[in-house]
């Protein structure tokens, strides 16, 4: 039912009866025992009834609209599979962006589902609970529609085969994963700021739009369709995130400094994770949508700037990290791709050097930095590859204790010098990629010392399969780690040129188009 206005009741009143009217204050069990987690973070809520429902959807309307979307989506996924839609993408390099998506993002959708189920049980107010539960259900949808859309790619291309196993182990996948584990293990209000607000509202356009527009630009109807189908869900999620922050800020002035700290923290955490998206946009899409720098300017600096102007009346200021991010936008995608190129033997997708026309595109998009700092290095890599010396870095990099990205970023004031920060805690030294990550650690060291850092775990011997003996003669640690990751050496990873994916795509496309 779309909530109908009857003679006596307005839409708002009627929806209130359908949701918050259902709850009651318990008396056989104390409320603090029924809702044990919504006070410890120090957020003060005086009147849950002041919560404004960001959307008014009853379950029957939800089922009806969502089922309609599902029917359409699966019809397209089926047609895409039946028609070998994968052969219609621009070129086979594109398929590697989907590997990044399936292993790095789809499992996070599932984490979002769990996180919102948790918050949807624990908030004392019925209004936010109902909204969170709907989001929890949507997030199952997103995880599953992504898995189902990529299922067909998995049948024909390498590297898609074991995403849930990989995200728990592979070095770079600990970056997105630890981000979500961090949010989930925080209190329910921090989760709402981390995911509901910072991620869904401030940063979602920088994740979702690049991937889905990238799919549209590169002829991938399968991935494009789940993205477009999720759009109206995302709109609901954004309004929930915004309502939540406003509600917290309006309830008590003491909430402001806590919320501001979370915004600062989560914007920086999110920005670091989005390095992977920047690299995808600038290097992995054969047909580019826009540069990472342009995306950052439109979606963060302009749109985000307007949002923070709007929140200024509550005393909220632009996240502290914005100044550093404004410098970084000219660099991070190049630095990340240079790293993945070198560590191409240890990822579940292929890497390559951009062609000379692609380098020209990068020069044009990054006039201040690409030719000066990155082109010479990339041309050197390409030359070496041509000469038969494709470079692979076989050492293990040092990781940032907070964001878990290898120490690949440079000093804000000097793009030729790697940025290192460190903190001492209980007799141990911890390393960071930036001031932002160091500050996050320093505020909650007991949390971040727990991080499961893939490189440390390899050194500790925790990334070999049972029965493997690192003391055996001729032991090859990289091969053993790849086995443990379930990455097939030479098939899922390394250089794109000459890969099985490249060969198959070319052969199948010929077969489909010629007699």
């Amino acid at each position, binding site marked *: 039912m779309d909530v109908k206005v009857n003679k006596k009741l307005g839409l708002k009143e009627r929806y209130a009866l359908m949701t918050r009217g259902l709850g009651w204050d318990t008396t056989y069990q104390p409320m603090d025992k029924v809702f044990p987690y919504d006070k410890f973070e120090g957020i003060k809520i005086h009147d849950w009834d002041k919560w404004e429902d960001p959307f008014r959807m009853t379950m029957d309307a939800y089922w009806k609209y969502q089922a309609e979307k599902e029917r359409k989506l699966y019809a397209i996924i089926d047609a895409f599979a039946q028609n070998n839609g994968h052969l219609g993408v621009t070129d086979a390099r594109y398929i590697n962006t989907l590997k990044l998506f399936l292993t790095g993002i789809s499992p996070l959708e599932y984490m979002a589902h769990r996180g919102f189920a948790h918050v949807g049980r624990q908030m004392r107010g019925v209004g936010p609970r109902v909204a969170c539960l709907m989001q929890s259900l949507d997030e199952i949808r997103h995880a*599953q529609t992504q898995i189902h859309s990529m299922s067909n790619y998995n049948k024909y291309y390498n590297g898609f085969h074991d995403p849930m196993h990989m995200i728990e*182990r592979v070095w770079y996948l600990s970056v997105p994963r630890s981000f979500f584990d961090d949010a989930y293990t925080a209190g329910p209000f921090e989760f709402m700021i981390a995911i509901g607000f910072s991620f869904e509202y401030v940063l979602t356009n920088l994740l979702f739009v690049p991937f889905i527009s990238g799919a549209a630009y590169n002829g991938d109807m399968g991935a494009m369709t789940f993205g477009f189908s999720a759009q109206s869900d995302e709109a609901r999620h954004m309004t929930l995130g915004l309502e939540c922050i406003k509600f917290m800020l309006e309830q008590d002035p003491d909430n402001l400094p806590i919320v501001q700290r979370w915004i600062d923290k989560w914007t920086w955490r999110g920005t670091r994770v989005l390095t992977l998206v920047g690299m995808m946009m600038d290097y992995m899409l054969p047909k580019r949508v826009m540069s990472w720098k342009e995306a950052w300017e439109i979606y963060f600096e302009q749109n985000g700037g307007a949002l923070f102007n709007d929140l200024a009346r509550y005393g909220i200021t632009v996240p502290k990290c914005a100044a550093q991010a404004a410098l970084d936008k000219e660099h991070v995608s190049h630095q990340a791709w240079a790293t993945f190129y070198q560590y191409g033997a240890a990822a579940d997708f292929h890497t390559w050097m951009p062609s000379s026309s692609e380098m020209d595109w990068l020069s044009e998009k990054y006039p201040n930095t690409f030719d000066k700092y990155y082109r010479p290095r990339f041309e050197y890599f390409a030359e070496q590859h041509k000469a038969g010396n494709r470079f692979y870095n076989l050492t293990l990099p040092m990781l940032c204790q907070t964001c878990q990205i290898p120490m690949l970023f440079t000093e804000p004031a000097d793009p030729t010098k790697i940025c290192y920060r460190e903190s001492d805690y209980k007799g141990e030294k911890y390393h960071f990629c930036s001031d932002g990550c160091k500050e996050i650690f320093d505020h909650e060291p007991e949390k971040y010392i727990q991080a499961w850092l893939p490189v440390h775990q390899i050194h500790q011997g925790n990334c070999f399969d049972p029965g493997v003996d690192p003391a055996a003669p001729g032991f090859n640690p990289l091969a053993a780690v790849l086995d443990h990751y379930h990455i097939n050496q030479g098939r899922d990873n390394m250089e794109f040129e000459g890969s099985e994916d490249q060969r198959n795509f070319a052969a199948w496309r010929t077969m489909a188009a010629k007699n």
Partner: protein
Amino acid sequence: MQIDLRTVSIKPLRQTFDQVARHLGADKPASRYLEGTIRVQAESNFHYRPLWDPDHEIFDPSRTALKIKDWYAFKDPRQFYYGTYTIARARMQEAAEADFDFVESRGLADSYPAAAKGLALEVLLPLRHVAWGSNMNNSAMAAYGYGTAITQPCLYQAMDQLGIAQYLTRVGLLLADAEALDAAKQAWLEDPKWQALRRYVEDSFVMSDWFEQFVAQNLALDGFLYPLIYTYFDNALTAKAGPTVSMLVRFQAEWYAETVKWVDASIKVAAADNKDLVSGWTRAWRDRAVEAVAPLAARALEAEADAVMAELTEQFNARAAKLGLAL
């Protein structure tokens, strides 16, 4: 006549994801239910412990006393993933909508006999709070349970119960008005005949073992409440005053017939290796459920109540025995 269309066929390199192939024991084509369910939840190498529950990992099988060898043995016989779930519910809501429209457009609420209407409102409306309680419990199972195969349908159950609470609200608004909902809430909070049930629901909120909660909510409480209300009370009302209210609660009746299959399948898997534990929970919560719904049965069925409760108990015991429990 058969039309034989041809497509370009390419031999796939693999049939499904490795986590699904490991589950099936071979690389063979897998359903969308399996690809969207098997091993989707993370299992190891968690980064941090929850600030709000440092004794457990993010996903932790020890949040229940159940000992389960394979958490993906908990399959949903309905094979619900998000798509099949929403499509199934959309069909049911379409039927419900037509029923509500029919009752409304024919003025059946106005012509419904007053005594039956009073009884229907008195019995049905406080149940919207019970359904909301089930939403809370099933969302807790979805949030703290282990393995997508069992936690995914718990969220569907939670949302279904929210839907049921909303349908019951609409019954109140159609047969009466918002004041009737307020009165029902007062009864839920104060009327003696609802207090044992309210205590049951509130006690179930604070249970620490999510599978015991599953037993208390989905097996024991629903196992008595749904047949009592949506079979026996429904029949009694129809006999007295015609099928108007029956049309308005059809969703619940059909829903219970469907979901009970999933509940039974889940209990069966849990009981296979945990017979004493699950039997003990079931015994304890069955006894409390009987006590909690008896006053409601007395009001709803009057003279028939004791006989019906005895029959329901017998049916429940037989069902439990079939699921491998010893009560």
